[in-house]
């Protein structure tokens, strides 16, 4: 049992254009409802802009744009997941946040076979839980972009 706990990670599961994705809960700060986003000029298209998060300016990323997925409409369920890696804070727009699940290391499979090119390098692996396949994202890679004119 103890060993199982050691190898188990917790993931926040969310939906993005009808697919399920997971983020390591250690890196997730908060989950916010949608707020107005201020566009920032001269940034890549996947940077939607910045928001005011209780006095902090936080950039917001649209993963559908980044991974080349089908865009979805904003609904009541749309959320912004605020992640933090080292000292970089960033928000990710998702269609819906579902749950927090435990995934054992053994349940994670490497995903070299993924077809979407933009996605591949940002993925830790695929977590298989009860017939579901959850794409686990690598936050370090996600935030590791530099925006220059």
């Amino acid at each position, binding site marked *: 049992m103890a060993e199982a706990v050691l190898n188990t990670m917790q993931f926040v599961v969310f939906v993005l254009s009808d697919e399920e994705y997971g983020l390591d809960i250690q890196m997730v700060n908060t989950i916010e409802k949608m*707020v*107005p986003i*201020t*566009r*920032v*000029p*001269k*940034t890549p298209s996947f*940077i939607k*802009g*910045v*928001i*005011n998060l*209780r*006095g*902090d*300016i*936080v*950039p917001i990323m649209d993963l559908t744009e980044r991974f080349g997925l089908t865009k979805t409409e904003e609904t009541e369920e749309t959320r912004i997941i605020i992640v933090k890696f080292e*000292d*970089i*804070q*960033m928000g990710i727009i998702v269609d819906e946040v579902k749950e927090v699940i435990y995934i054992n290391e053994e349940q994670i499979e490497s995903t070299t076979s993924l077809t979407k090119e933009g996605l591949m390098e940002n993925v830790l692996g695929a977590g298989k839980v009860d017939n579901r396949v959850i794409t686990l994202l690598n936050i370090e890679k996600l*935030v590791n*972009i*530099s*925006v*220059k*004119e």
Partner: protein
Amino acid sequence: MDMSQYLEIFIEESKEHLQGLNQSLLQLEKNPQDVPILNEIFRVAHTLKGMAGTMGFNKMAKLTHDMENVLHALRNNEIKVNTNLVDILFKCLDALENYVNEVVTKGAEGNEEYSEIIKGLDAILNKKDAIDAAKDVAKSDVVENMANEQGEKAGIQHITSNFKMNHYEHNLINKAVDMNLNVFKIVVVLNKGCVLKSARAFIIFQTLERHGEIIKSEPRVEDIEDEKFDFEFTVVVISKRDAESFQKELMAISEVDDVIISTIHVNESEDIDEIKSEVQEVSTEAHQEESNHDIEEHQKTQVSKNNIKTGKTVRVDIDRLDVLMNLVSELIIIKTRLEGLDEIERNQNYNEVIEYFERVTTNLHDAVMKVRMVPIETVFNRFPRMLRDVSRSLNKEIILNMSGEDTELDRTVIDEIGDPLIHLLRNSADHGIESLDKRREVGKPDAGQINLRAYQDGNNVVIEVEDDGKGIDLEKVKKKAIDRGFINKDAAKNLSQKDIIDFLFKPSFSTSDAITDLSGRGVGLDVVKTKIETLGGMVEVDTEAGRGSKFIIRLPLTLAIIQALLVQINTEKYALPLNTIREIIKVKPEDIKQVQKQEIILLRNTIVPIIRIGECLDVPPSDNQNKLLTVVVVKKGEKLSGFLVDNLIGQHEIVIKSLGKLLAGIKTIAGATILGDGNVALILDVNSLAV
């Protein structure tokens, strides 16, 4: 024992102490006779040694120890302050600073032993005997005269004692007499029934030390401690008090049978080692008064020294301050939000609350700002030392006058302003101040003056670096600019003085023919300018051939909260810092003309280029059907540009926030701020948008 938790404190304090030593040493060089300063240096050096020893930095402790030896000799008047000595001491400080820096980067003191410096210190100590002898000869004449004089005045009996004095004591007594202090020889006779002689002696020593300094005892202190004495011992005490009060106080101690006090005057003696002392039972009134006066003065200087030291810094974690700042900014946001509600609720109470709230936020703002403010002294402090070194290496005599050290600036500015100022000071010393021969030729005093001034001017702090040197040779600069291809010959003819000076701030531009260690590589002024501009400030130059030049730096008091004009472009809101805005005008669309593919307008006969901000920022074009266009005229340096906007929203006090690491690379945006409705507005970087 784990010392790492003390490491930070050690580093901070060592730096502080070294800075203090630098300053004191400079003062000592100016007033070699200043005993309080010498004591202060000694004390600080001793503390440093102790700290280094505790932390296990043995090399550092060794160096401070050797330094302390020299200081000790200095204090005992065995050696004299001279430039050579001060040089070596400064080298010691540099070495110690290197040790500390090594500790900062690596956590250990490194392997450098600075054996040369240690050798230098030893050499000074070894030489002292020779110097000593010479000095004693000189001194003895004076002493003789004085002793005779005083002997006559007092008309007192002379008792010759065969009390032996060595060099050191001899000198101390000389010095004490010079300072009009009393020197007593006190013979204490203890009761024959006294059991704990050493304890009794200890009490007596303590009593004496409360009012003076014991410079000698017979038998030696160690022997007294071991009870290796009969029932009587003799001490020599330097004190400002008179004999009677000592007599009284000592007699009050139990088991003391007798106290014989005699005043010692130093006489010339054939053998320096043996001094005949004169005795004076009662001090003359005049003598007393004089010495009192002297002591008062002494105390005064002491007090003023203390004042300098009380400027202790409170170390505040800058992160904590940022949190505080954040809170304040939120308060300001709420304030703005409440103001917006005003129209709906026009209740008297409500207005009062708003007023109160506003007062609180203003106070809080001020308080936080003050915490962030640091006197510029912390930067200026290191300049006298630096300029001393520079002037010596250039072989020029330079006097640095500083004023306005207490002018306060935001911490972030303070941290950055040091390097640019060093550049400017070195520039003045190297390029500005002429060589000695040249100065004499043109009839200027030998010593060049550099004035470093800081003062507050409205919302700005102004720092001036002024020298009385030769000024900037405009023709030479112009010629160089042509040589370098910055400008062609014909165009150069029409340049104004300001235009020419601007060349100095171009990268790799130096007018000095010879490249020296200090400057002349031309990497100075452009760096200065860039740095100051990133701090939101600007540099101006004032120069007059033959009279000197003046560099004027203007810096904003703070970088955190500014006044801004909010403008609207299509639906987006942007903030423009108010201090960059010259004026706002309305123009008809047909007033905008094309010149070389650049849109311009004529503003009172000045050509002002028009920039369609919306296009620069990729804002979708608006269907603005206004008959008049709104142009915000901004200034970048002296040049004007007109920013075309759709709408003006108004003037607001905004809190500048960084866009974060991720978006830091966007040039056109200087930062972001949070508006009253909680939304984010971007702050435009006028310098990069303007033409």
